[in-house]
């Protein structure tokens, strides 16, 4: 069993290694955490996740850009690959479930992948549909997973116009689902006009904005 000091050092090391995109260090410390008897969930939520959150803040502050975020995401995944399989899943798993995809007609995925990483770093369960996803597929997957959130991504002005129809169909099938919309051509105003419940203008803000949208939905 890890001493409080060992636990703190290991978790702090994980956080720093993610922020410094040191994949090898993250893998090494993830294994060490298990050896020390640190719960995988603890290592993820209090070690890996803060590292990715810090990376997101650095992106918002324009100190990190996409290359750094991608490498931080790789480092995070190096740890998740070791720790996640050993997570104890409670019968009543209360994690937020998210379906994510780039909308039909759009094959861009960097933004969507970074958002997925931020959601995973937050400990949420993500069902990634990939790119060029049509309305029916979004609706089907939301129902299959009973996802709390559906996150729609578009990089092009032409593909974002698919969003209103998708959002209408999702709401008709599951009125309580929370829809997030994002991507380069979108603004908060456009997302709202399309019927989305929330919007984030960069991946660093996406977890915060999604939580805000979920809270608003609960209070409604």
């Amino acid at each position: 069993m890890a001493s409080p000091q060992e636990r703190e050092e290991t978790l702090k090391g994980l956080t720093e290694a993610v922020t410094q995109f040191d994949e090898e260090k993250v893998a090494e410390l993830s294994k060490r955490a298990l050896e020390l008897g640190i719960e995988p969930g603890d290592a993820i939520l209090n070690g890996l996740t803060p590292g990715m959150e810090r990376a997101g803040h650095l992106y918002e502050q324009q100190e990190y850009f996409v290359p750094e975020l991608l490498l931080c995401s790789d480092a995070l995944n190096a740890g998740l690959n070791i720790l996640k399989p050993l997570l104890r899943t409670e019968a009543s798993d209360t994690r937020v479930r998210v379906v994510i995809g780039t909308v039909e007609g759009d094959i861009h995925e960097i933004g969507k992948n970074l958002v997925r990483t931020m959601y995973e770093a937050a400990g949420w369960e993500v069902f990634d549909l990939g790119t060029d996803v049509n309305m029916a597929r979004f609706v089907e997957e939301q129902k299959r997973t009973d996802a709390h959130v559906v996150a729609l991504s578009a990089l092009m002005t032409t593909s974002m116009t698919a969003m209103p129809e998708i959002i209408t169909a999702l709401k008709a099938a599951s009125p309580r689902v929370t829809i997030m919309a994002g991507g380069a051509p979108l603004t908060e105003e456009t997302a709202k006009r399309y019927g989305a419940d929330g919007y984030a203008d960069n991946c660093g803000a996406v977890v915060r904005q999604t939580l805000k949208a979920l809270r608003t939905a609960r209070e409604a």
Partner: protein
Amino acid sequence: MTLEDRAIRLLRGASVDRTPLFPFILGFCARNAGHPVATIYRDAERSFELQSWTHEQYGFDWGPLYGYASYGTWEFGGAIKMPEGREQAPSHVRFPVQSEGDVISLSLPEAETAGCLPVAMEFSRLQAAAGKPISVVCAGNFTMAGNIAPVGTLCRWMLKKPDLAHRLMRLATDHIIDVVGQWCDTFGAEQVIPQFWEPLTANTIISPKQFEGFVLPYLVESAEKIIAMGVRHLLYHICGDQNGNLPLWAMVPTGDPGLCSFGVEVDLTDAFRHLGAGNVIIGNIDPQVFLTATPGRIYDLCRAAIEKGRAAPRGFMLSSGCEIPPDSPPYHVYAMQKAIRDSGKNG
């Protein structure tokens, strides 16, 4: 003043009767005459015809163009698919580079036969025959590299394996020089106005420091070599939020003058300040508004840009900041010409 007169006079620094209207409009031209968007990219003759009709109808001043942002994927041995449904341009299916080994074994494509180049050459023969600017369109150096390997891979290699990133930039740069050289040999360097579209250098993707280290040296090299061939004007489409890169873009030789087009993310005043002394500035109406705004709003945005454009040291052409969406309502596109007619007259 004819459309050709206006464009040529602007490049020569002579006065023009009104603000020119530069066409960044491709798929719309197909839909405008009842054709699928893919025709613009598949069929040189029909593409030229469709664009010419729309330019005539809406008063565009430059001339038909052939090109797309995913240039490089097909040319270097990957695969693209033609647009269908909602898609507005050719898109990647398979990147030429999937692994580090692929980078090492990658070779330069033939500038006559690779990918879309036979169609592009046929298109340029039509430009030449019609007396229009001969505009070979390539992706810019970094965007092409990001079309050869997926941009996420390129970004990772920039930090972790810079030699691989530099190799891709080397290949992209050499290919650009080959293609422009091919066009110069065919049409005469003075007639060729190459265009380079650089969306992947936006600061939403890479930092100004990464632009300076990984992109700028190659941009400068290819531009210098192209100008040394005798090309007089280069056009760079500086897409997206590139505000952090503007002082660096100012170091890229572009001809006398060059042409630089911008999206809504860059204020025209900043564009004039950094690049206006050496370039005709083009832009910068947000393409999104053609779908989402009212004609009145579009008209007002165009008028505001026209007024700002009067301060451009080497001239200004009104345009959308990126391709006008193919599904744009026709009257929304007309709002650009209406704004020029009402506010764009000179003298």
